[in-house]
């Protein structure tokens, strides 16, 4: 355990969450049952909501906090008519097609090959041979290294990587999330993600679940909190407040900082497990990124 992790876990106590079984008990971990329970909880709590005059359906959770406010939704819709992330898609496309110094491109790497519209939907996945979760950010960097290029910095620190992710998200619109857990290793990764999601952390002693499950749809100061279902469908997002693209890892780290916790490092086992867990819970939802956020 490194120092950073120690600091992160300093104030930790496990949130007693009624939605999930004890993460340490292998026998009772049943991701599919967890997912169904989460869907039921979210639909029971918010299924009565209407957006644009229509009752919300499961897939609408991919819109995040917008499902709780017609005003915010209408505002978002008008911004989306001339989306501020278009230049980032274009920039990402150029980078995607630009050959490396060796003349090859990303599409020669396993996982990034084939139909560009299907790439993002393959991630995150658990690689049994390597025994780890692979996220798209990492696959792009590994392809670069394999072709003699320098890897990009993660979590929004390098705009080139954020732009590539924005381009691939846009290409993948309409695909369904389909994360599989079919090995003991994958189940371990799921359990780690679940633990990260439900553990209280930081000086302010908050868990992701407290805000994005229990308090989803409620205001914290003037902001309505999004439900965890659908978090992964629409990333990366263009945030007006930052004037830039924000990746999912960057957002996770931002929420950790907001509770005065030391965030897990970029591309760490913990952050990847968190994405794996959140993505699994959103199985069946439609990819609809990139999108615009305040």
């Amino acid at each position, binding site marked *: 355990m490194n120092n950073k992790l120690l600091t992160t876990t300093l104030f930790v106590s496990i949130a007693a969450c009624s939605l999930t079984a004890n993460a340490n008990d292998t026998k009772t971990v049943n991701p599919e049952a967890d997912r169904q329970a989460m869907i039921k909880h979210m639909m029971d709590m918010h299924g009565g909501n209407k957006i644009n005059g229509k009752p919300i359906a499961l897939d609408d959770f991919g819109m995040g906090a917008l499902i709780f406010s017609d005003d915010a939704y209408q505002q978002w819709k008008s911004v989306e008519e001339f989306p501020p992330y278009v230049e980032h898609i274009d920039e990402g496309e150029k980078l995607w097609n630009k050959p490396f110094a060796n003349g090859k491109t990303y599409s020669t790497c396993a996982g990034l090959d084939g139909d560009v519209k299907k790439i993002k939907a393959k991630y995150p996945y658990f690689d049994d041979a390597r025994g780890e979760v692979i996220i798209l950010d990492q696959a792009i960097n590994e392809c670069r290294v394999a072709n003699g290029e320098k890897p990009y910095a993660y979590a929004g620190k390098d705009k080139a990587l954020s732009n590539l992710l924005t381009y691939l998200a846009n290409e993948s619109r309409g695909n369904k999330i389909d994360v599989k857990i079919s090995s003991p290793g994958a189940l371990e990764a799921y359990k780690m993600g679940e633990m990260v999601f439900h553990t209280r952390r930081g*000086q302010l*002693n908050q868990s992701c679940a*407290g805000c994005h499950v229990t308090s989803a749809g409620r*205001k914290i*100061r003037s902001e309505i909190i999004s439900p965890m279902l659908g978090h992964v469908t629409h990333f990366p997002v263009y945030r007006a407040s930052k004037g830039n693209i924000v990746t999912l890892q960057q957002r996770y780290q931002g929420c950790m900082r907001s509770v005065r916790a030391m965030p897990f490092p970029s591309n760490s086992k913990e952050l990847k497990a968190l994405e794996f867990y959140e993505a699994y819970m959103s199985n069946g939802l439609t990819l609809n990124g990139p999108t615009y956020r305040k």
Partner: protein
Amino acid sequence: MVKSQWVSKLAQALLVTTIMATASVATAAEEKKLSSVEEGKKLAFNKTKGNCIACHMIAGGKEPGEIGPPLMAMQARYPDRQKLFDKIWGKPGVELMPESQMLPFGKHKVLTDDEINKIVDFMYTL
């Protein structure tokens, strides 16, 4: 006319004197209390301090959150001052629900005991 002006001047003067006399009668402790309520209010609304308003509706606060219950009629609901202090401090056993998002402000050193006391003074005015 001149006379009635004078009368009203006298009345004003008397009024001012009465107020000043009342004020000077107030004990030093009460004066301290007044400013401590003000300080408690500031602490409760400050984003980097109590930030109670992020989660609770509190009279006089802008943009209240909806995570916790409205904080009102506090003296009636918490006649035992220590109970309210403990709730904010985060003493074990005072949580209403196990998964509560209410912060243990004292336990996690977000606020000092002195600051929590000022917030309790402010709470008692609600």
